[in-house]
């Protein structure tokens, strides 16, 4: 790109300012998590850095239990979504049946129904199944995902039909073709969808709040909220320490998968 040095300078200053504004809350949380309560409440700059807040966060609340629950729930949802979405997308691309396209459009149309609209029927169902306070109650309602099916369908469509025909002639059934050809070829998109699904469920708040009544399966986002309200005077240092711990897995995933995530999400758009 050709750009004058002056222009470039302005751009970079603007970019830096916006970056600082965007990152400020996170930075504040990070700094606060290392500050003593006194410093926080007086609003002064940190006089000393301490790890006490982290110790407290783990000691006072079952944070490990929450983190573990969140991991289990997120991973279950991720796997469930990958399996169901890829199977559905396979059917929409490689199997021919009457009304396939119509069915697909109906499927996609469900994306327009916000989750909040279906939350009450969903709650009724898991209550009637006695699934409240269970992992299946937390995860199964999220297995079927229209967006994931759409994403994978676009990706599978780029696989030449001849591959399917060649394996048909070789005597390979649909399921083996799905396992040995389609999944490996669409690896990038699967990773993308997996990361996306994991992060979304990791950050989920409303549903775990409804579907849990005690600490046994409660996820970390609810736990954080509890940190805030359990005491009359909020212990901001501890809350921030908890928040930082919660962000860490998200950040790790993002740094590891950023390249793949971008490629995967835009892949379907190219064509």
């Amino acid at each position, binding site marked *: 790109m050709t750009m004058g040095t002056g222009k470039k300078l302005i751009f970079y200053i603007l970019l830096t300012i916006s970056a600082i504004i965007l990152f400020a809350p996170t930075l504040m949380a990070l700094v606060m998590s290392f500050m003593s309560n006194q410093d926080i409440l007086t609003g002064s700059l940190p006089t000393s850095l301490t790890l006490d807040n982290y110790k407290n966060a783990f000691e006072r609340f079952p944070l490990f239990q929450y983190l573990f629950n969140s991991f289990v729930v997120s991973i279950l949802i991720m796997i469930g979504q990958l399996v169901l979405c890829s199977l559905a997308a396979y059917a929409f691309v490689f199997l021919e049946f009457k009304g396939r396209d119509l069915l697909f459009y109906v499927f996609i149309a469900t994306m327009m129904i916000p989750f909040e609209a279906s939350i009450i029927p969903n709650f009724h169902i898991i209550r009637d199944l006695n699934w409240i306070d269970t992992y299946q109650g937390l995860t199964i309602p999220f297995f079927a995902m229209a967006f994931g099916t759409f994403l994978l369908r676009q990706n599978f469509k780029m696989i030449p039909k*001849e591959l399917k025909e*060649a*394996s048909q002639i*070789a*005597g390979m059934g649909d399921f083996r073709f799905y396992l040995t050809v389609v999944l490996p070829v669409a690896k990038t998109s699967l990773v993308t969808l997996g990361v996306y699904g994991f992060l979304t469920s990791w950050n989920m708040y409303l549903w775990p709040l409804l579907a849990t009544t005690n600490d046994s399966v409660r996820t970390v986002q609810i736990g954080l909220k509890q940190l805030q309200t359990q005491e009359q005077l909020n212990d901001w240092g501890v809350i921030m320490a908890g928040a930082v711990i919660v962000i860490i897995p998200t950040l790790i995933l993002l740094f590891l998968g950023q390249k793949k995530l971008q490629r995967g999400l835009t892949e379907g758009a190219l064509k």
Partner: protein
Amino acid sequence: MEQVELIDITKSYDKQKKVLNEISLSIEKGEFFVLVGPSGSGKSTLLRMIAGLEDITDGTLKINDKVVNHLPPKERNLSMVFQNYALYPHLTVEQNILFGLKAKKVSKVEQQERLRETAEMMGLSELLSRKPRELSGGQRQRVALARSVVSQAPLCLMDEPLSNLDAKLRANMRVEIRRLQKRLGLTMIYVTHDQVEAMTMGDRIMVLNDGIIQQIGKPITLYNEPANLFVASFIGSPKMNLGKAKFSTDYKQLIIEGVLPIEMDPLSVSERLKDVNLTVGIRAEHIFSGMEENATHYLEVVNVEHLGNETTLAFDIGTELWTAKWPGQWMINVGDKIPVRISVEHLCYFDSDSEELLKAATAGKSQEVVAI
């Protein structure tokens, strides 16, 4: 022995227009059979029906005297090579070649044995650990061939396998495929839109247009005695020169396109030719260069192509553009009027209305096809 037999095979989508109309033919064991036709003629559909990838609307398909209409592809014991090669991008060459064998549960030892043999035959031994995207077009083509060879299926179907290659490589692969087929004794059904490929490779050719068989026969037969105007203009490069023609009232002359009279012996004109609208055709190589004494016509050259070993000349004959192909190098310029020799025994006669062949050229066969 007949390997593949088609009886009144018909294909239509949604019960509307027929893509293929009552195709009947039989293909012998060990034969190299070429289906040729312009795009949209239904040749690929026919091949895919034989492979079992496409339903047969009507008719009977027999492979080895067994009706296979409703058998899935894998039970028809055949292999297929696709136009885009259909190589699995995430597998190495070796895995690609062995893909079908794994599905068929061939033992590991035999897999390796066949792989080694095939790779050697196709010159792929060095490339076995590469991925398809690291191969050139010709190498990919070879892998696709190897995959079909390794299956040891007696019947091999190919759907325009050479159309993605450049001209030089294509000529090479033509020879290779042909040799391979003879060496392994495969029955080959080969689809192409390129008539040169059809002529050079096929034992027999079927010309297909609009879902209807135009002609089935040996390449030379199709060339010398095209059954109709479509085959005449489709087979051969450059295409056969065609023109509407009328006899003079005394049948001593045949006047082509109203401008080119050709001397006739009135006695040789059969009754069949007299009462139809005629179109005559003559191959480019049968418009000879004439000397002053034996030239029958003087024609104005509108285009010259120097190919080194031969020279192609174009003339305007009425509304048609005719070409002549002369061996050797001729220093002729556009606009020159040159003497040519066109004789009546090289003319093919067609009925302009039904487009069928009435009478093939009488000369030619004995001169050109030299039997050894």
